[in-house]
């Protein structure tokens, strides 16, 4: 520990962020990033306009969060509020997918798929278009303001704002019929909440992707912290192969050293890997929290290696274990199938399988029963005991369905529904409107003389008179137990 001394009062209250000027680069990883960017943004911006015929009365938008009517539509799936556990399942799967990605190839999510990365990449491309590449941008930022600088900066911000606005605009299209909403937005007749959300998302996109950029990953995002605890020596991380790179010497000096039989690394310390890095780190310092594993330094280094006629992949997706093995003269090993990855994959399959099974066996009707508590039971004039329940019937089909109610569990037990006429066989028939639910008050009566405990289970069944689908719920029948 150093014992250098400084006055604590001299420490500045804040640390100004160091602006990062990433240099453009080309190579396979850059191409992969462009491809993913166009794919992701294409889906995001165009998906709301995809139609899906669900028949009359229901919206024909393929992906729609219909908050007003409490429905979520995803292609052939229609989710009701009480089925929100599907989202829990999706979140669990997403978390495990992230863990799996991390165990196999580090933070590939951050480098290629994260919205922050994707939009930052797009915003950087716009910046490069107007202000030029790294050196030109740095020079211009230091130079005094000129007309040229002013229009370039203004144009950049204008295009950023348009992209940000379109991003927010696409977001609201997922919550209402997209073509209708676009027309309403254009004629200023859309709901005020639509404009507010577009404004909020325009602001966040502009400030996060345009202004904050890598600082979001460094300061705001929790994933780097979690990821640091999840990664291991066998994960394929963007790695500087120091076994091959060190010691760093220039090309000329390397020739000299090699002639003398002295060690000379492949790294010529050209700093290209640092120049292209969107978070402004030096990968040669080893695996670090700020690295988003985008692989652009690999492209940059490969370009240099090709120029000076040395083998590529001085920086590569590699494991820490293999660098050490190579130094020890052992062959590298890659084990993507490890206990960790297999467990993650198995958990994804289990959760996904459970969700698919649930979806496949999903009922189009549902019943829920709530026992009324005040009073728990009523004695009628003939001595029979009656309990009341609130029965809610759900009809997820696009047509009206009549449900006949029956009850089982005790001798002579009878069911009536308030305000509902029974059929000839005394079963009350409740008609439920298409794609909606209906609550009825149900009275269940047990005749006098039936021995009753304080509480006994009963089953209320609703059968669709036409389709034959039956659903049932169990509840309790209460009575003053123990007394004759």
């Amino acid at each position: 520990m150093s014992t250098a001394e400084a006055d604590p009062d001299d420490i500045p209250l804040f640390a100004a962020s160091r602006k990062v000027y990433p240099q453009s680069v080309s190579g396979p990883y850059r191409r992969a990033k462009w491809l993913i960017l166009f794919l992701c943004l294409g889906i995001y911006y165009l998906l709301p306009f995809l139609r899906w015929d669900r028949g009359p009365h229901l919206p024909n938008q393929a992906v729609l969060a219909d908050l007003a009517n409490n429905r979520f539509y995803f292609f052939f799936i229609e989710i009701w509020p009480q089925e929100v556990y599907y989202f829990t399942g999706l979140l669990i799967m997403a978390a495990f997918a992230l863990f799996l990605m991390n165990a196999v190839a580090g933070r590939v999510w951050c480098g290629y798929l994260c919205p922050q990365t994707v939009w930052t990449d797009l915003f950087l491309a716009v910046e490069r278009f107007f202000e030029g590449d790294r050196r030109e941008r740095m020079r211009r930022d230091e130079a005094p303001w000129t007309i040229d600088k002013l229009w370039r900066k203004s144009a950049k911000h204008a295009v950023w704002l348009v992209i940000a606005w379109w991003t927010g605009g696409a977001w609201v299209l997922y919550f209402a019929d997209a073509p209708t909403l676009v027309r309403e937005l254009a004629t200023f007749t859309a709901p005020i909440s639509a404009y507010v959300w577009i404004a909020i998302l325009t602001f966040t996109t502009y400030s996060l992707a345009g202004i904050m950029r890598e600082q979001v990953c460094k300061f705001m995002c929790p994933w780097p912290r979690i990821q640091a605890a999840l990664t291991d020596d066998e994960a394929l991380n963007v790695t500087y192969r120091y076994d091959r790179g060190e010691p760093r010497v220039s090309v000329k000096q390397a020739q000299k050293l090699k002639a003398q039989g002295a060690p000379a690394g492949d790294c010529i310390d050209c700093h290209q890997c640092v120049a292209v890095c969107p978070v402004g780190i030096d990968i040669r310092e080893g695996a670090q929290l700020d690295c988003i594993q985008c692989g652009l330094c690999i492209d940059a280094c490969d370009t240099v290696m090709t120029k000076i006629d040395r083998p590529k992949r001085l920086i590569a997706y590699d494991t820490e274990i293999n660098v050490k093995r190579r130094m020890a003269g052992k062959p590298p090993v890659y084990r993507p199938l490890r206990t960790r990855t297999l467990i993650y994959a198995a958990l994804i399959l289990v959760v996904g399988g459970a969700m698919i099974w649930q979806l496949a066996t999903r009922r189009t009707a549902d019943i829920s029963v709530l026992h009324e508590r005040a009073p728990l039971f009523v004695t009628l004039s003939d001595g029979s005991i009656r309990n009341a329940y609130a029965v809610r019937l759900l009809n997820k089909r696009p047509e009206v369905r009549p449900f006949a109610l029956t009850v089982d569990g005790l001798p002579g037990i009878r069911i009536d529904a308030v305000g509902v006429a029974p059929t000839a066989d005394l079963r009350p028939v409740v008609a439920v409107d298409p794609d909606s639910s209906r609550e009825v008050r149900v009275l269940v009566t047990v005749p006098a003389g039936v021995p009753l405990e304080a509480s006994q289970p009963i089953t209320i069944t609703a059968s669709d008179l036409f389709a034959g689908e039956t659903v049932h719920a169990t509840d309790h029948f209460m009575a003053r137990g123990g007394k004759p």
Partner: protein
Amino acid sequence: MDQHHDVPKIHAAHIDAVTGQATTGHEWDGIRELNTPLPRWWLGIFYATIIWSFGYWIVYPAWPLLTDATRGVFGYATRSDITVQMNELKAQRAALAAGMADATPAQIKADPTLFQIAMAQGKAAFGDNCAACHGVGGAGGKGYPNLNDDDWLWGGSLDAIMQTLRHGVRVAGHDETRVSQMPAFGRDGMLKRDEINAVANHVRELAGLSTEPKANLALGRKLFADNCAACHGPAAKGNQEMGAPNLTDAISLYGMDVASLTETITNSRGGVMPAWGGRLDETTLKALTVYVHSLGGGQ
């Protein structure tokens, strides 16, 4: 960190060797706390929130004074806000209640939309006005009828319920109020103590309940026919016209044990319910009628 030390400092900060960062000078078991400066944007937001709070002080009521509080430049108050919202709600409900005003309880019952409104409104009105005596769910208690069962003193049809609601029970000054007066046979000296006991046991006999071993059931039978049958009927089945309860069913308002029956015969009973006509508007009365009728005992 390039620090100039022209003047020797008393508080000399410790510099962490690994990060080159100054520490706060705190140390716990050899672990020191780095004094890392905050990111500028973070500090900026912190200051912005402080400035924002000044805006709040000016715009909204903020500072408590001795008897009042500062008003804020817009004169915003939650009370006026809620008044506006309540008026909006009333206007909204008025449209729904329009249908209720013209319909009879029977028509409301038959119309699914009106029925739903009546149930919601009736439940709320019941909680506000009736639950104190009849219980939240209308379960009642000793002396307060259970509205869920099928036994009615004055009838359980929609019209009968509406009349009871509107005019109450034993309300002075209401011509149409429900009135019945059972004589206080004991207090007024019409029956003696052992005669009352005989009648009480006979009533239990009528209801199919056990009687006391030494009870004079023959005397009770005779006394019942002479004194009670006029209102309760020869078979004690009651009479809703006169508000005379059926004594043979399984439900009793005041209890069927000998002690309760003795008390009833000796001093008579006479529950009172307020007349709600005039206190509640017509629509609410109708909604309450439909709600009470649907509790389970409606006829």
